[in-house]
């Protein structure tokens, strides 16, 4: 019963969405080159299945790599901001400003900086677009640690590192995972941005672009759906990690 609700309800929601989409296309009489309908997609998947597989893999690994770097760098920046007031005052405007820059404008910059390094550029963009929420949440989590939490260990002569490892780090985990859920979709957007904008791209973004060039609209929509599926998979991978490492923060319902 519980399993049925956990899986059945979201699946039903997706089916209703697809049905509505199909209905919308049918009722408006839109031809394929205006708006593809869900029933056009299986054909695209069957025809280009090998491109979808390699494209998904390329998109996936570069997103995860960028996200991994964002986790490490974001946590480090967050630690610096969490422990030092001066660093916090100094870094905040800089980070906010950087985050406000539309990342699409950086694609040509990166492309010129690292000519031909397509994989590197893509991973770099995934990282650049996704580290901000992690840095901010870790920084806030550490700087708002109640002094008593520090004092129970400090009064025993524990080192700063021990206090960080035993108290500050685990206490920040729920905020960290909250940020990671935002970052995972951002990293995904970053990867696709480079794949679509930069020429000679790889991954699902490039497949989308080739659909556009060949006016193959069902292919384009099939790519969008594949991207959505990948995004959902990554998101729930983060949720699973959160259950393992910060499951204690979840209170029993009722």
């Amino acid at each position, binding site marked *: 019963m519980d399993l049925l609700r956990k899986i059945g309800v979201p699946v039903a929601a997706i089916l209703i969405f697809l049905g509505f989409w199909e209905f919308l296309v049918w009722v408006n009489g839109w031809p394929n080159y205006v708006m593809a309908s869900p029933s056009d997609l299986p054909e695209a998947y069957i025809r280009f299945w090998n491109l979808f597989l390699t494209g998904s893999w390329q998109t996936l690994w570069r997103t995860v790599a960028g996200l991994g770097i964002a986790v490490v760098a974001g946590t480090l920046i967050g630690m610096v901001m969490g422990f030092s007031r001066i660093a916090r005052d100094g870094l905040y405007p800089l980070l906010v400003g950087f985050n406000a820059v539309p990342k699409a404008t950086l694609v040509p910059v990166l492309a010129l900086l690292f000519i031909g390094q397509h994989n590197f550029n893509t991973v770099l963009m995934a990282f650049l677009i996704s580290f901000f929420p992690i840095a901010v949440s870790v920084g806030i989590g550490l700087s708002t640690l109640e002094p*008593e939490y520090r*004092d129970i260990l400090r009064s025993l*002569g524990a080192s700063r590192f*021990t206090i960080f490892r035993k108290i500050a780090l685990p206490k920040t985990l729920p905020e960290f995972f909250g940020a990671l859920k935002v970052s995972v979709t951002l990293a995904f957007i970053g990867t696709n941005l480079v794949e679509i904008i930069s020429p000679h791209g790889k991954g699902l973004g490039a497949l989308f672009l080739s659909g556009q060039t060949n006016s193959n609209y069902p292919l384009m929509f099939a790519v969008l759906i594949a991207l959505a599926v990948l995004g959902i998979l990554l998101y729930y991978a983060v949720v699973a990690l959160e259950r393992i490492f910060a499951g204690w923060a979840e209170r029993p319902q009722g």
Partner: protein
Amino acid sequence: MANLIEIKGVTHAYKTPNGPLPVLDGLEIAVPEGEFAAVVGPSGCGKSTLTRLIAGLMKPDRGEVWLHGKLVKSPRKTVGMAFQNPVMLEWRTILQNVILPLEIVAPSMPRKDRIARAEELLALVGLSGFEDKRPSELSGGMRQRASLCRAIVHKPDVLIMDEPFGALDAFTREDLWQTMHELRAKEPFTAVLITHDLRESVYLGDQVFVLSGRPATTQYVLDVTYPGDGMRRLEGLYTPEAAAMLATLREQIQIAQGRHPGPAVH
């Protein structure tokens, strides 16, 4: 008996944007080994600063803090602390919370012994059977009991408590006072209790130190002679002797607040 805690002429001021804010001024407190000192005083008179000084978490501008005949310069492993907030680590079970100080103070202690020690204390405060629960599954009073266990698990010389019962309802608070006496009977430690509750100070303290308003000095020291023999009983608070002590303390607090002591108004 030698004094375990000696605070000699401690003066301290905090730096603020509007200049120094003096909080302590020539404070004198001496607590003999094994005794229980209660500290009362008006709000914001520097009582919490006092706990941090004894714990070695900060140094006074002037004056000295001595523990066990040694000048306190930095934190030492021989103190235990409990606060109004039980400060439970939500990601650990109750047992793991209590064990925490042992991980710092006695890293080589075998795991089996740590668990035995924590279980022994949890049984003393009536938390047997809750070892594997998360703090969020316990009531406020139970969390505070666990917090007291954690404060003394490493057998500290000094237990420093900053209003540990302040956030609890009256009945739970009285239960915990009783627990405190039971703990003292089994575990020898010298205690400093910061409190706003005069009845609490008389029921738990061997001496009650009344601090003046900011900057705080030691304004008055009351030696508690609790009515009755043996273990203190709550009923003792409703005797004329206790009433007289409470009246004295209330009068002293009024002086500390800068008000003229008058007849108690109810």
